C-alpha cells in the first residue's frame, strides 16, 4: 500500500534520511521507534509530502507521491495525519474542526458532515464536547478530536507523529486506547512513537531507525525480545 524506495532527505546540507526502503501493507500497523534526531518524524512527514523529498520515491496505492503530475492534495485526503502538538484549529468548535474538510473538499452537506462528525466523536468518547472550543479541552481530549478530524476524511492510511509525546502521563492511555481501537478495525497505520508498550502490543511490525537509516525491523516479539543489531540493543537497553 505504501512503498518507499531509496528515500533521501536533506535539510540544506544536512542529510536526515540516507536511503530508506520500506513497504507497508494494507491493514498493517507499523511503529517507528528510535532516538531523537534519527529521522523517524521526517520519514513520516515525507509520506504525505509535508517534507519535500530530495531523492527517491514513495508510492501510495501505486501512485508516485513525489511525481510533479500527482495532485498532492488528493493524496493527502487519503492519508490522515495526527501531530504531536494536535494542531486543532483554535478558532473553530470541535464540531467545525471535524466537519470543515469533509464539507470543503468532499463536498459533503452540512447535516451529513455533522452526522459523521458526531459518530466519530462518539467513537473517541467526546460527543459532549462538540460545541466546545479546543482550548477548553485537555491535551488528551484535543488529541482524540484530532484523530476524529483526520478520520472524517475517511483516509486509507493514518500517520501518527509522536501522538502522545506532548501529553501529561495520565492522558496518554486515553489516546492510545483510541489508536488500539483503530488498529483492531483494520486501519493501516504508521506510528512514530516512544510508547514501547504500545508498539509491542499493537504493532504488526516495528522499525528501528537511527542516523537516517532503518537499522533493524521485524515483528515486535523478535525486535524487542531478540534484537540483532548493536545499536538496537543499546537503544532498547535505555528505554525499556
Amino acid at each position, binding site marked *: 500500500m505504501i512503498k518507499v524506495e531509496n528515500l533521501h532527505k536533506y535539510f540544506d546540507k544536512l542529510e536526515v534520511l540516507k536511503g530508506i526502503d520500506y513497504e507497508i501493507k494494507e491493514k498493517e500497523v507499523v511503529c517507528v521507534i528510535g532516538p531523537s534526531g534519527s529521522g523517524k518524524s521526517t520519514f513520516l512527514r515525507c509520506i504525505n509530502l509535508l517534507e519535500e523529498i530530495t531523492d527517491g520515491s514513495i508510492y501510495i496505492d501505486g501512485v508516485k507521491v513525489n511525481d510533479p503530475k500527482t495532485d498532492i*492534495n488528493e493524496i*493527502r485526503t487519503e492519508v490522515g495525519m495526527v501531530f504531536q502538538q494536535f*494542531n486543532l484549529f483554535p*478558532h473553530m468548535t470541535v464540531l467545525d474542526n471535524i466537519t470543515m474538510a469533509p464539507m470543503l473538499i468532499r463536498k459533503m452537506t452540512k447535516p451529513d458532515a455533522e452526522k459523521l462528525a458526531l459518530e466519530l466523536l462518539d467513537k473517541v468518547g467526546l460527543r*459532549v464536547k462538540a460545541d466546545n472550543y479546543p482550548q477548553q479541552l485537555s491535551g488528551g481530549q484535543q488529541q482524540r478530536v484530532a484523530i476524529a*478530524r483526520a478520520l472524517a476524511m475517511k483516509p486509507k492510511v493514518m500517520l501518527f507523529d509522536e501522538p502522545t509525546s506532548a501529553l501529561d502521563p495520565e492522558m496518554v492511555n486515553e489516546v492510545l486506547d483510541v489508536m488500539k481501537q483503530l488498529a483492531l478495525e483494520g486501519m493501516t497505520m504508521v506510528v512514530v512513537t516512544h510508547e514501547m508498550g504500545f508498539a509491542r502490543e499493537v504493532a504488526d511490525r516495528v522499525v528501528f531507525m537511527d542516523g537516517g537509516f532503518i537499522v533493524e525491523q521485524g515483528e515486535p516479539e523478535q525486535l524487542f525480545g531478540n534484537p540483532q543489531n548493536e545499536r538496537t540493543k543499546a537503544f532498547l537497553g535505555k528505554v525499556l
Partner: protein
Amino acid sequence: MDFLELRWDIIWNYRELFLRGIWVTILLTICGYVGGIFLGVLIGLGETSKKKWIYWPSKLYVDLFRGTPMLVQILIIHLALIPAIFGQSYGFMVSGITALILNCAAYNAEIIRAGIQSIDKGQMEAARSLGLTHSQAMRKIILPQAFRRMIPPLGNEFIALLKDSSLVTVIAANDILYAAKVVAGAYNRFWEPYLVAALLYLILTYLVTKVVAYVERRFSNSYNPRKKKEGRVEA
C-alpha cells in the same frame, strides 16, 4: 494668555466650515483606510510569498512608503504623479485619498504579514494534511486566526491615519485643520480654532477606540453567537 476672554462665537460663525471639515476628514480617513486594507492584504500576502518576483516588489513598496514622510508623498502624488499620469489634477479629494490609501497600505501590509507569520506553522500543516490547498488553508485557517491578532494594530493604524489625514491641508483640502486655519487667519486668533480642531480629532479618535474595542470583543474566541445549532441530535 487671553484664556479669560476666549471668543467661542467666532467658531460658531464658522460652524459650517467645521462641519464640512469633519465630514471631509471622516471621508478621507475611511476611504483611505478601506483602500489601504485591500491593498495592504495583497502586499502583506506578497511579503509572505516564497516567490521572489512577488516578495521583492511587495517589500520594496513597504520600504518606500514607510521610509518617506507622508507629507512628501501627498505633495508628490498631488502635484506630480496624478498630473503626470492623467494630464490634470482631480482635486484634493482624489489626491488625498490616493495618498492615504498608498501610505496606509504599507503599514497595514506589515501588520498583516506579522499577523500571518505569528500563526503556528502546525496550523498550515494540519490544514494541508487534510487535503486543503494552500489558498484554502489561508482563507479558512490562517487568515481568520491572524485577523484576530491584527485587530489591535489595525485599530492603531486607523487612529494614526485619522490624525495623519490632517496633512492633506497642505494641498488645500478643506478638512478639520483647514477650517481651523481659516478661522485663525480671519480673526488672527489661535487658541479657539486650534483647540476646537484638536478636540474634534480627539472625539473622533475616541469613537474609533470604542469601535476597535467592540470588534476585538466580537471576534474573541469565547464569544459564540450560535450557542447551540438547531437540528442537532444531542447526546
